[in-house]
């Protein structure tokens, strides 16, 4: 009896593990239309080709970090760094995280000059919009703030990726993120910068059962896995928009 139990337990365990493994490899799948790279990251291309190094700054708010002792290593900026190192060996990758919680796009836009001076990044990933949606900031003000922030970075010669909100089904009826993500898309188009559509990507994962984003409880594993996938998806956007596939294929050979 005991052996049967142990065997059953082991089998179950194995199945769960295999399932988790399958989920890990398959979960991050994103269709092409959600990662578009029509706008080129020229400074990134130059830095990778000539200097063999890439300095990236993530400027954002609470959804760019994870709490807890293993938070910093599991949040998407660290996962992005790991993914890029893997994809682009021979290139020195550094991702710094400049996160301050509860800041609006306007607050973050104001800090952009300092970011450029202090960190001298080749690329700034600007994650914003959630606090603006919570506080119901006027669309016009939000747009001006985005525009100014991107302009400041572009004037300093820094490449920019705009990153919109998370898909959070439980708070959907309380936080209307739609208009804000529309505005971010418009600014990204007008300023010719890539938009990392975190909202669309996470919604895709949720709709296709990759992740249960409806989960209410304290589930660190889910958060870590989602952030890992986001980090990898940004790495893909950077490689494609920076036209770094050549470096990547050279590395594979």
């Amino acid at each position, binding site marked *: 009896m005991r052996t049967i139990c142990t065997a059953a337990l082991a089998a179950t365990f194995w199945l769960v593990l295999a399932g988790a493994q399958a989920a890990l490899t398959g979960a991050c799948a994103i269709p092409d239309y959600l990662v578009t790279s029509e706008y080129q990251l020229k400074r990134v291309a130059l830095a990778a080709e000539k200097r063999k190094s890439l300095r990236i700054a993530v400027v954002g*708010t*609470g*959804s760019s970090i*994870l*709490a*807890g002792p293993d938070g910093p290593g599991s949040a998407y900026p660290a996962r992005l760094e790991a993914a890029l190192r893997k994809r682009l060996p021979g290139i020195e990758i550094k991702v710094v995280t400049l996160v301050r*919680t*509860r800041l609006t796009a306007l607050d973050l836009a104001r800090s952009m000059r300092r970011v450029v001076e202090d960190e001298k990044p080749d690329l700034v990933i600007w994650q914003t919009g*959630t*606090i603006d949606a*919570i*506080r*119901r*900031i*006027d*669309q*016009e*003000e939000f*747009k001006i703030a985005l525009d100014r922030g991107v302009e400041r970075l572009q004037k300093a010669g820094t490449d920019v990726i705009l990153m919109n909100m*998370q898909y*959070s*089904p*439980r*708070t*959907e*009826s*309380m*936080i*209307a993120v739609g208009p804000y993500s529309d*505005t971010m898309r*418009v600014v990204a*188009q*007008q300023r010719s910068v890539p938009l990392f559509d975190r909202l669309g990507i996470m*919604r895709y994962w949720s709709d296709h059962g990759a992740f249960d*984003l*409806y*989960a*209410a*409880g*304290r*589930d*660190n594993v*889910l*958060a870590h896995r*989602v*952030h890992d996938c986001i980090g990898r998806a940004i790495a893909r956007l950077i490689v494609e928009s920076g036209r770094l596939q050549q470096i990547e294929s050279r590395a594979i050979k």
Partner: protein
Amino acid sequence: MHSPISPIVARPRDPTTPRDLRLDLFRGVALWLIFLDHIPSNLVSWITIRNYGFSDATEIFIFISGYTAAFVYGKVMVERGFVISSARILRRAWQIYVAHIFLFAIYLAEISYVARSFDNPLFAEEMNILDFLKQPDITIIQALLLKFKPVNMDVLPLYIILMMMFPPILWLLLRNATLALAVSAGVYAVALMFGMNLPAYPEGDWFFNPFAWQLLFVFGAWCALGGADRLTMVLSSRATLAIATAYLLVAFYIALSWHLPAVMSPRVTQWLEDVIYPIDKTNLDALRFAHFLALATVTVWFIPRTWPPLNSRWLHPAILCGQHSLEIFCLGVFLAFAGHFAMVEISGALWMQVLISVVGILTMIAAAALIAWYKRADERRAGGVSGGARQKPANADLAGGEA
């Protein structure tokens, strides 16, 4: 009509004229569409008109509310004078205020539930929405002052302000309708030029700028008080119909490009971005207003006042909802909350979205039927007790539906 102010130019319809059922029909439909649009991630909301042009159900709701307010209270003002009619209008504003605060209580219940039950570390940032809960002293007072307005709770505060300022507008409309409309357009223009709006909490302005949206409300009132008759020439011309149809088609094409960018060349998209975007909802963008006018023009062309289906059984549910718009609107906001809650707790699958949408609309119809039954019972009793000696209760809200 012997009246203390004897209107010369504008004259409300003869009280014996039956109420225009088209108003109730389209307001009822607008209430259904608002309900569908308020459920987040609801695929059924693809059928609502906001996806096919610039304007949405809000325009229909505000226009018809202005029309019926003038229709109901204009008669009272003509028959019983300024003071009585103003008192009735302000009582109506008070009812809407109470309804709004009731909805706010439901919102507080929902957000408190989320605060207690939701602890997913992935969404720590989204939980900042609960900051409002940490300062109930400020949040609740700001809500009572109509400055703090949660998502999807912006229409009733607009309606309250519009009703509060309606007595002088109605007075002017009855004396010189054209002048009143001109004043309204002037306020709209000045508000746009100088960025006039009411302040909101925690920051910014009202989502529906009352100084801009009053134009649609007053225009509706103007139409009710003879304006529509004066527009008959324009409305019955084929050229007008052609222009309106063309405008709707262009708007449809542009709206299509929001969802399928491939239908439009990038050059045209760029041009649209530079020239016409954003189509501002807060300040009732002129393009939205024009879109509503075009929609209304085409509608009245094909659906005359005496359209037989208006009296059919099939359209009765929508008409019923439109006749009790305040209650049904509030119910719709509540049902949207409840529907989203069911999607979160049970399933967000497509069948669930369809089920919630259908059950929601059926609930709205049932509630409207119940309210109508109460009102009929009350009226019958009032008539029975006084043995027919007393006239039908002169309550404007009950005279063939509410304002």
